[in-house]
């Protein structure tokens, strides 16, 4: 069953078209990755799903059209976004950041339960729950961003370059946690990454983007195994 189905998606920044007739879909419970070089349109694809850019084409989430909704309402159907640059509320405390993730939820008691779960998954956030979020290290802020998104109890998590600017060891830790979240909480993920090797290890399906068009797609294992694709498109 398809969780997200995108057909003929175009996107613009002002007069400049960035995405051209994109088609992709996402299975329930799966992790799909979108790979590509700088400027290929990876971040824009995520922003298009959230309707934070101007788009045409259809985006269907659990059999309902979501294109044309306001960004604030995309969250309400169960799509959480860990944006480019992490989107931390730097002036607020760690705990306030987490609570904001659950802003649209009404089940106050369950939110408290989830807060505790985030703290047990990321003990470092618990140590700092009263601290101004802007003072956290890059890795901690990435963990905070992921936890904030999970506080929504989303069906789908959009992740924009969670490895960006982080030390390899931290990246490994974060990707391991993402795998756990996917398996234990049944959260599907759409992952955008520049680090192709890392993404292909985590994902089960991959799309390759070049200047706003899908040039290749297939199971992550196949792409990883194909040396020519790796050389030409992924550079490793």
């Amino acid at each position: 069953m398809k969780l997200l189905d995108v057909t003929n998606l175009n996107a613009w920044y002002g007069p400049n078209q960035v995405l051209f007739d994109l088609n992709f879909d996402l299975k329930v419970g799966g992790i799909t990755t979108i790979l590509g070089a700088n400027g290929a349109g990876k971040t824009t694809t995520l922003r298009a799903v959230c309707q934070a850019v101007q788009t045409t084409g259809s985006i269907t989430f659990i059999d309902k059209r979501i294109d044309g909704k306001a960004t604030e309402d995309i969250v309400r159907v169960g799509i959480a976004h860990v944006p480019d640059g992490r989107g931390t509320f730097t002036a607020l405390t760690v705990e306030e950041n987490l609570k904001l993730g659950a802003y649209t939820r009404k089940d106050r008691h369950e939110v408290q339960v989830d807060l505790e779960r985030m703290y047990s998954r990321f003990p470092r956030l618990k140590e700092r729950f009263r601290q101004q979020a802007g003072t956290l290290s890059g890795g901690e802020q990435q963990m905070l961003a992921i936890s904030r998104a999970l506080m929504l109890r989303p069906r789908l998590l959009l992740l924009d370059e969670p490895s960006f600017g982080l030390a390899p060891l931290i990246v490994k830790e974060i990707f391991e946690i993402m795998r756990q979240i996917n398996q234990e909480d049944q959260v599907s993920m759409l992952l955008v990454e520049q680090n192709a090797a890392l993404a292909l290890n985590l994902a089960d399906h991959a799309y390759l983007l070049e200047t706003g068009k899908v040039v290749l797609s297939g199971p992550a294992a196949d792409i990883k195994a194909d040396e020519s694709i790796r050389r030409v498109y992924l550079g490793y």
Partner: protein
Amino acid sequence: MDSFLLQVTAGLANGGIYAAVGLALVMIHQATHHINFAQGEMATFSTFIAWAMIQAGVPYWLAFVATMVVSFVAGLLIQRIFLKPVEKAPILTNVIVFVGLLVIFNAFAGWIFEHTIKSFPSPFPVEGMFLAQYFSGHQIGSISVTLVVLLSVFCFFRFTPLGLAMRAAAFNPESARLVGIRVSWMLALGWGMAALIGAVAGMMIAPIVFLDPNMMAGILLYGFAAALLGGIDNPWGAVVGGVILGVLENILGAYVIGSDLKLTMALVLIVTILIFRPYGLFGKPIFSRV
């Protein structure tokens, strides 16, 4: 000694009003990161509405509450009608709108209610409830009302999900949208609340300075100074700043600079703070790591 204490207590009462105006400015600043230059004029207009109701025979406290409600709704509508269209425009465009609102409200107040100076009733007894030789009833009353307003605002921002959402929307609108906060409505709410606080300040100061369309012009300046002194994003700071300013103004006015230079002092203070301590006495500089 006695006259000195009288200066201090009168300063405390005035300070309470400056604090309330400062608080209204901080409110809008927290919600939008803008300073609303029309804040004073809006407050004056609200006070005129209260005056008209009281003239028509409405009991004071009923008129007080009704004015608060009307001001809140008006603030909300002003944001929806005049500021929403320029939400994404550069800050200067917003400033022009603020100045426009200032002139509009001032002119309308003069046109509808005329420029003659009017006396505005105080709901508090003339005799103070305690320390009667130092505080008048109105001084104690207006200080208490200001404190109640401040406490409600503080609790709202600190302890309610909506207050948190408003702060989030102000700090990082982009991210706020991604967690589902309706940012534009948060701004409107901020405007409504600021208009309400301004109205309260207007109704508290009017018995002291009398009501006319330019009533708040000077007081707004003190409000600015109070908000800046305390730290523009710190509601407590605005109040402490207001009280310090009120007392300082009275003492300096009585013993050092004379009453002509009182307002100048507020301006000097604004400039000095902006140069040496732009985040005020209690505001905290925001740190962020990349």
